């Protein structure tokens, strides 16, 4: 478990303290994929670098498995860092070394493994990230997605318990992003390691994260399970991020439905409810008429969900809404 206790960070610029992160508390559980989303300058880069102390907090404690890493002397800190892998937006591979040498590098630094053991581990890691044929290439000969796979293999070399992802997919095209995210999800599942990722894309959070924290101007304005935050965003910043991930209409916030007759409702389905024909059954039973204004059916990580914006008309709308609620569908009224 990673725990931030009253942690804050400010930078000294020209003799003045500029706050980068307001005091906050946060817990990240073992084995979860935790997303931190924010615009550039919100402080997410700083936050993720606190976990391996690439940035030192101005105050507070950072506990990893109950050890306060801010109090560790240098050699112990270096040992702790060897158990925390990190991947980067721009990959940060050694351009003078081959793929295999890049992956072997953290093991050579850590010591304690002979060259045969290192070679075996490199082989294993290359298999895992699907680059078995590229061992002797140089990074400049690889595509962006392949470079990030090398980054991931390198980060996993010393069998870390935590993997930090610093905008790991921001420099990749959508298709490559999808495959890298899939690899991260697979690693999380199979190796049971904790992943902390920062991003400015809600879609990345939606696809792989279990929980998310929304960072705005150095403050965590909202955090919780991705499904809750995604389907019921509270803070304005969160809403903006969610809306970016949705087609414009489905967001429903600023789309004028005044001219649409009936009551404008937003229905959110989660899990099994997404696949059952509840809406059809309820409207048939109550005689309520509906018109779909916007909608989306997708997944949040492995959880299927649907969100529909409807205009409902008829005498029994309230009764229908109750029946829908009873079936486990969440309902918000947008306009009457």
């Amino acid at each position, binding site marked *: 478990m990673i725990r931030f206790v009253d942690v804050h960070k400010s930078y000294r610029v020209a003799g003045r303290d500029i706050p980068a992160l307001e005091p906050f508390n946060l817990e990240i559980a073992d084995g979860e994929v935790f997303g931190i989303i924010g615009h550039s300058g919100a402080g997410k880069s700083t936050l993720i670098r606190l976990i391996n102390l690439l940035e030192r907090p101005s105050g507070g404690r950072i506990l990893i498995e109950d050890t306060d890493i801010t109090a560790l002397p240098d050699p112990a800190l*270096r040992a702790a860092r060897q158990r925390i892998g990190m991947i980067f937006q721009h990959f940060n591979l050694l*351009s*003078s070394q081959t793929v295999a040498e890049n992956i072997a590098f953290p093991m050579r630094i850590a010591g304690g493994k002979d060259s045969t053991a290192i070679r075996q581990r490199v082989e294993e890691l290359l298999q895992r990230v699907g680059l078995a044929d590229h061992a002797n290439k140089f990074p400049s000969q690889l595509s962006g997605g392949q470079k990030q796979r090398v980054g991931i293999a390198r980060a996993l070399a010393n069998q870390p318990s935590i993997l930090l992802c610093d905008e790991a997919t921001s420099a990749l095209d959508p298709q490559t992003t999808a495959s890298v995210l899939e690899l991260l999800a697979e690693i999380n599942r199979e190796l049971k390691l904790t992943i902390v990722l920062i991003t400015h894309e809600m879609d990345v959070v939606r696809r792989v994260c279990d929980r998310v924290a929304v960072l705005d101007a150095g403050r965590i304005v909202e955090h919780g399970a991705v499904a809750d935050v995604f389907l019921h965003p509270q803070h304005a910043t969160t809403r903006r991020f969610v809306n970016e991930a949705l087609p414009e209409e489905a967001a429903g916030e600023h789309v004028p439905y005044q001219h649409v007759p009936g009551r404008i409702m937003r229905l959110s389905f989660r899990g099994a409810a997404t696949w059952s024909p509840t809406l059809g059954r309820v409207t048939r039973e109550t005689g309520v008429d509906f018109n779909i204004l916007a909608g989306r059916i997708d997944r949040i990580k492995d959880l299927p969900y649907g969100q529909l914006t409807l205009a409902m008309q008829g005498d029994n709308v309230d009764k229908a809404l109750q029946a829908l609620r009873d079936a486990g569908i969440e309902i918000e009224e947008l306009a009457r």
Partner: protein
Amino acid sequence: MIAASLPLLQNLFPNIDDWGELGQACIDTLLMLSGSLLLTVVIGLPLGVLLYLTGKGQLHAMPKLYGVLSLVVNVLRSIPFIILMIVVMPLTYVLVGTKLGVRGAIPPLVIGAAPFFARLVETALREVERGVIEASQAMGATTWQIVRHVLLPEARASLWAGVTVTAIALVGYTAMGGAIGAGGLGDLAYRYGYLSYKSDYMVVTVLLLIVLVQLLQMLGDRIVAHYSRS
């Protein structure tokens, strides 16, 4: 081959009395160059690494130490080499027991070139991507491991370019050194070519120096090309 071409050379440059002396001067120049280049790298490389590490915003930023080092480097670089040679003569005598010849030339050559090379090293290291260094820190690397396994290998193309530039600068210095008793090609050019009006000496030594510089540059370019991977 050299023996066969000798009559031809004697016809071309009739004023040159002693070709053996010229050959010895070539050897002296090469000895001065290789000896001083080796020591310049041995001293300048760590100095450059230290300049880099202690610089502003770097791994071990130490403004005061950096300020002092930087000042010393700048002072040594601003003294014209011919003056520097004279100034350091007492030190030269203490170090190698003579102020003359190949041995006497090497200490001032190194003192003149090492600060220059150190600056080139500092610049080369600064070009290494910050992200790569950050990644190594995140892996738990020590500063020494970062220098040894990240900074120097990543910068090796620019470092070799720096060695090439330094070697060529040293060729110039050795020739200058000839004027005050260092021997070598510069010495011949000065004594016979300038003081005795035997311009053939001047022409031949300059031609030899041009060839030497060309060879050094070609060799350097090849090494740099070999190490450039991105």
